[in-house]
Structure formats: structure tokens, C-alpha cells
């Protein structure tokens, strides 16, 4: 498909919107735009972080998903209780692939589903007593846990439970951190508020726990924020930071621990990967502890090198030299990867629809491989995300917010991308349509994709999917013949 002009792209959006009833059409129109690089502020042309339209197929999740699923779930030595009915804990178990190193059920608890499995009587009489008892049972069975978080499901906020009081009481009794999190699924309009609520809970119950305690710091202490170690991403990032001479005191929250989080206020610089889900705590630490924070991008060698230099610029020459040394070390390997895969991927068009940071952060990695992102959108972004995205995207590309299943399919039919990067709910419809697809939430069970080591896997994976022979077999040969004879006749 040749590139669209601005007018063609706008016409496409209008055509797609045609099917909606008037009210929904008006609403959806605000969430779809053609990129215009002359505009600085996205709010002039796209609306985001608003309620999804009822009855359309939104791909969004809820606050619980943002808190338990994203922020809290990966912390390995804290037990997260899915507090409420039985489903949420099961649905959010294991799908995000937050890797951790530890002994499950003994000192690590990420892959276990703990729930209060609410029954009717808990709804009628309240769940506080059950919660208190449950915490005792956890303490008996898992003595080496470092803390507990209570992840509220929808009913908790509706039946007037006081989980904060239970948490305070039990914390005093068992002497461990217990964090009540008000992330009921009906709060907010997407996962996003869940991230915010989760950050606020960390702020209120964890971050200042060691303010008075001594910490042996070095001038090179940093923390990684907003890396959930999906397929080992945070490890592939940490290795570069360590190699350039930094000391990574904490990982938030992939493979993270309570101790790391509590020690984070002692670092010199917070490195923020997923801005959307952790800018809140970074801003808080900046104000309270005067720790500056920096957004970085570890997808693809170009952005990684830029980011390493950017990070190093906050430190002395030793670290600056370290950054150059790291870049020089990996450059030959990266060049070899690009030499192999770029000829196979050059000019291929990509459409993205993900969450967090990926619709903008992966653009550079695709460009390193000669690929071009022609459409990008977020499930739960805010306008500050779109401000950042518009700069990365080419002119006249499509940008879509909270895109519905129907809109996304139509855009794909018209634009015919060579690859889609999105989630599992979208994946299989595009498989039927014969469009190569990679999950960009879970890395499609592969990864890591962060860091130089991750880029090698990223390049391999994009190539295997774009160029796999299976996509050529969708049409039966006898149907192909019919089609071509049809064309001949027409000619």
C-alpha cells in the first residue's frame, strides 16, 4: 500500500466512523486523528483517557488490571491478594510474563493466585473479617513473605469494606508491610487509573519506610522504574546500566522486591521506562527526595545509544566513558543483526496498538530494521503520551485512541500493513485475515525485547513472523486460479 495523503487518511477515518449511531460517532471521532507534525500539543486533535463507549468492542482493561496485573503483581516477595470474587485473580495470572528469580511459594509469590474468593455472604456481611483471617492464614503458610497487598476487586468498594483499617491492624500484629489498594475495576476509565492508584499506594505505605535508616550509597546509584521484566526485559536493561558503571539499586517492579522499593529514595537518578504507569512515583520522589527522573527508551540500537548517553550525561566522565564503551562493545553485534534482517524487512509497514509506552517506544526499533510505523494507538494513554507519540510518527500516519475492534480491522483492511503489533484479543482476528501479527504486550511468549540483547530477539521475531511461509497459504490454489481467470475475463 502506498502512503496515504493527509486527505486520504482523513477520509478513511470518516468512512470508518460512518457505521456508528450519531452519539457514538461524535465521541469516537475525537479519538482518531491523522498525525500532523506541525502541531505541538496532541489535545488539539485527539481526545484520550475518557470513558469507552458502551457496547463497542473496547480492548481496555480496568483499574485492578493496572494495579494488580501491572504494577504490584511483579514484585516478587510481596503477596498480592485478589480481594473479591474468584475470577480476577485467575484471569490476571501469568499472562504478562513478569519474570522473576526465586523459589515460588517460599520467598517468591508472583506466579501464585491468592484470592479471598468472595461468596454471597461476604457481599452481604462484608469481607473485612475474612480479610483479617486470610492475612493470618497467609502468615502461617508463607512466613518468608516480606509484605502483603490487598488488591480490591469491584465489590469491595461497593459494600463499604474498610480494608485500610484491617491493613493497619494486621500490619501492627504481624509486623509486615500490608498495603490496601483501592483499585476496584469500576474506578477510572481503563487500566491507567489503576497504575496511578498503585503508585499512590506505594507512596503512602512503602516509599518513606526507610527515611531514617542509613544506606550505603554510591554516586552512581540509579533505579529502573516502569520495567516489568516481561520476558526478562529488565535484566537485559540492567546489564547495560551495570556495564556502564551504574549501580542499579532497584527494579520497579519486574523481579523487584520490597527492600529495593524502600531503598529507592536513596538513589541519584530515577530511570523511567514506562512513563504512563510510573511517572507518578517518579514525580513524587523528585519533589520529596529531590531525585531527578529521566525517560529513556531501550528498544532498538539507535534509541538505546541515545538513551545511554542521555543517562550518562547526568553523571561524571567515568560513566560517560562507560556509556561509550558499552555502545562500542555492542555495535558490531547490532550491525550484524541489522545486516541480516534489514534486507528482509526493509520497507515493511507496521501498525501498532498497545498500551503503556510501546506504541511510541518501539518505533525506533522498527526503523532500525528499515520498517515504518504507519499507525499507532494506545488502549489507555493520556494526552501527554500522544504529545510524545506525535513527534515520533511520520506526517499523515494514523493515530487512534481506545480503538474499537471494528475500527482497527477496517484500518487494517484499508492500509494493508505487513505486520501488526498488538494484543491477544486482537491477534487471532488478524491471523484469519492473513496479516502477520506479533503480540506486543507479552512479546508473544518470546523476549526480552529491551536492551541490545533484546533487540536481537526483537529482530529475529519480527522477521520470523513477517516472512513465515504460512501467510502465503490462505487462498486455496483452485480459488486463486478462479480469481486470475476472472481477471483475465474482465481484461
Amino acid at each position, binding site marked *: 500500500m502506498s502512503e496515504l495523503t493527509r486527505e486520504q487518511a482523513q477520509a478513511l477515518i470518516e468512512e470508518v466512523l460512518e457505521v456508528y449511531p450519531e452519539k457514538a460517532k461524535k465521541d469516537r471521532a475525537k479519538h482518531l486523528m491523522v498525525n500532523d507534525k506541525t502541531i505541538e500539543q496532541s489535545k488539539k486533535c485527539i481526545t484520550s483517557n475518557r470513558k469507552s463507549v458502551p457496547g463497542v468492542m473496547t480492548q481496555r482493561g480496568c483499574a485492578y488490571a493496572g494495579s494488580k496485573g501491572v504494577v504490584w503483581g511483579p514484585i516478587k516477595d510481596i503477596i498480592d491478594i485478589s480481594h473479591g470474587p474468584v475470577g480476577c485473580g485467575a484471569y490476571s495470572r501469568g499472562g504478562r510474563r513478569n519474570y522473576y528469580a526465586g523459589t515460588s511459594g517460599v520467598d517468591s509469590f508472583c506466579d501464585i493466585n491468592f484470592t479471598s474468593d468472595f461468596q454471597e455472604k461476604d457481599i452481604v456481611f462484608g469481607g473485612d473479617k475474612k480479610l483479617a483471617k486470610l492475612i493470618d492464614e497467609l502468615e502461617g503458610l508463607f512466613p518468608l513473605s516480606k509484605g502483603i497487598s490487598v488488591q480490591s476487586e469491584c465489590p469491595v468498594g461497593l459494600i463499604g469494606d474498610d480494608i485500610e483499617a484491617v491493613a493497619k491492624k494486621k500490619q501492627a500484629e504481624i509486623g509486615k508491610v500490608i498495603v490496601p489498594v483501592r483499585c476496584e475495576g469500576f474506578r477510572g476509565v481503563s487500566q491507567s487509573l489503576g497504575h496511578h492508584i498503585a503508585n499512590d499506594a506505594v507512596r503512602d505505605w512503602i516509599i518513606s519506610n526507610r527515611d531514617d535508616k542509613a544506606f550505603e550509597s554510591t554516586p552512581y546509584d540509579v533505579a529502573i522504574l516502569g520495567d516489568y521484566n516481561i520476558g526478562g526485559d529488565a535484566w537485559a536493561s540492567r546489564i547495560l546500566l551495570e556495564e556502564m558503571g551504574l549501580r542499579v539499586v532497584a527494579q520497579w517492579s519486574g523481579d523487584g522486591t520490597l527492600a529495593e522499593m524502600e531503598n529507592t529514595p536513596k538513589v541519584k537518578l530515577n530511570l523511567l521506562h514506562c512513563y504512563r504507569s510510573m511517572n507518578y512515583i517518579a*514525580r513524587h520522589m*523528585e519533589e520529596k527526595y529531590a531525585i531527578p527522573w529521566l525517560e529513556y527508551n531501550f528498544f532498538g540500537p539507535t534509541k538505546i545509544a541515545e538513551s545511554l548517553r542521555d543517562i550518562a550525561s547526568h553523571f561524571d566522565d567515568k560513566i560517560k566513558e562507560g556509556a561509550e564503551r558499552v555502545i562500542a562493545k555492542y555495535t558490531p553485534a547490532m550491525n550484524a543483526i541489522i545486516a541480516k534482517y534489514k534486507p528482509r524487512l526493509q520497507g515493511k509497514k507496521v501498525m501498532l496498538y498497545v498500551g503503556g509506552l510501546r506504541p511510541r517506544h518501539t518505533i525506533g526499533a522498527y526503523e532500525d530494521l528499515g520498517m515504518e510505523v504507519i499507525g499507532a494507538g494506545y488502549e489507555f494513554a*493520556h*494526552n*501527554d503520551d500522544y504529545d510524545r507519540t506525535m513527534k515520533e510518527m511520520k506526517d499523515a500516519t494514523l493515530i487512534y485512541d481506545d480503538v474499537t475492534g471494528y475500527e482497527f480491522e477496517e484500518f487494517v483492511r484499508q492500509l494493508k500493513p505487513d505486520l501488526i503489533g498488538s494484543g491477544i484479543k486482537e491477534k487471532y482476528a488478524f491471523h484469519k485475515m492473513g496479516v502477520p501479527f506479533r503480540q506486543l504486550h507479552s512479546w508473544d511468549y518470546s523476549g526480552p525485547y529491551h536492551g541490545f540483547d533484546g533487540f536481537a530477539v526483537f529482530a529475529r521475531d519480527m522477521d520470523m513472523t513477517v516472512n513465515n511461509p504460512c501467510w502465503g497459504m490462505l487462498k486455496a490454489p483452485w480459488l486463486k486460479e478462479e480469481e486470475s481467470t476472472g481477471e483475465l475475463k474482465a481484461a
Partner: protein
Amino acid sequence: MANIMVRKSADGGLSFYLPKRDIEDSITSIEFDTPEKWGGEIRLGNGGVYFIDPIPAPARLPISVRARRVDGVE
């Protein structure tokens, strides 16, 4: 009234952040900016106008303060 955060942006100017709504924008002007008196009416890049009760200039940024929306988009 809402809590807002004022911080120094990378380009040396000031930026405005409204956590409750995740609105981040540049501050184009601030009414008072002397050591004794800081705050007053602030204007944002998006045209929004907020008012901060003037205080002595904060020792360092960022700072969270209460602000009132006077005009413009939110």
C-alpha cells in the same frame, strides 16, 4: 481547587502537572516570581489559566501546591 505540581522542565522553563487528570503542560507565564512572592496567576501552553495563592519562592522545585482553575481547558 486541585493539587498541582510545578517542576523545572528540561528546557529550563517551568512545567505544570495536574496529577488527578494527568495534564502536563508548559507554564508560559507566572504572575509573581521573586524570592518573596511566588505564584499568582499562571498561564499554560494550552491556554489554561490557574491561580496559586502567592507564597515565598520555594527553595527547590518541584513543589506541589493547591491551585484554582481560572479559565481555559482542563
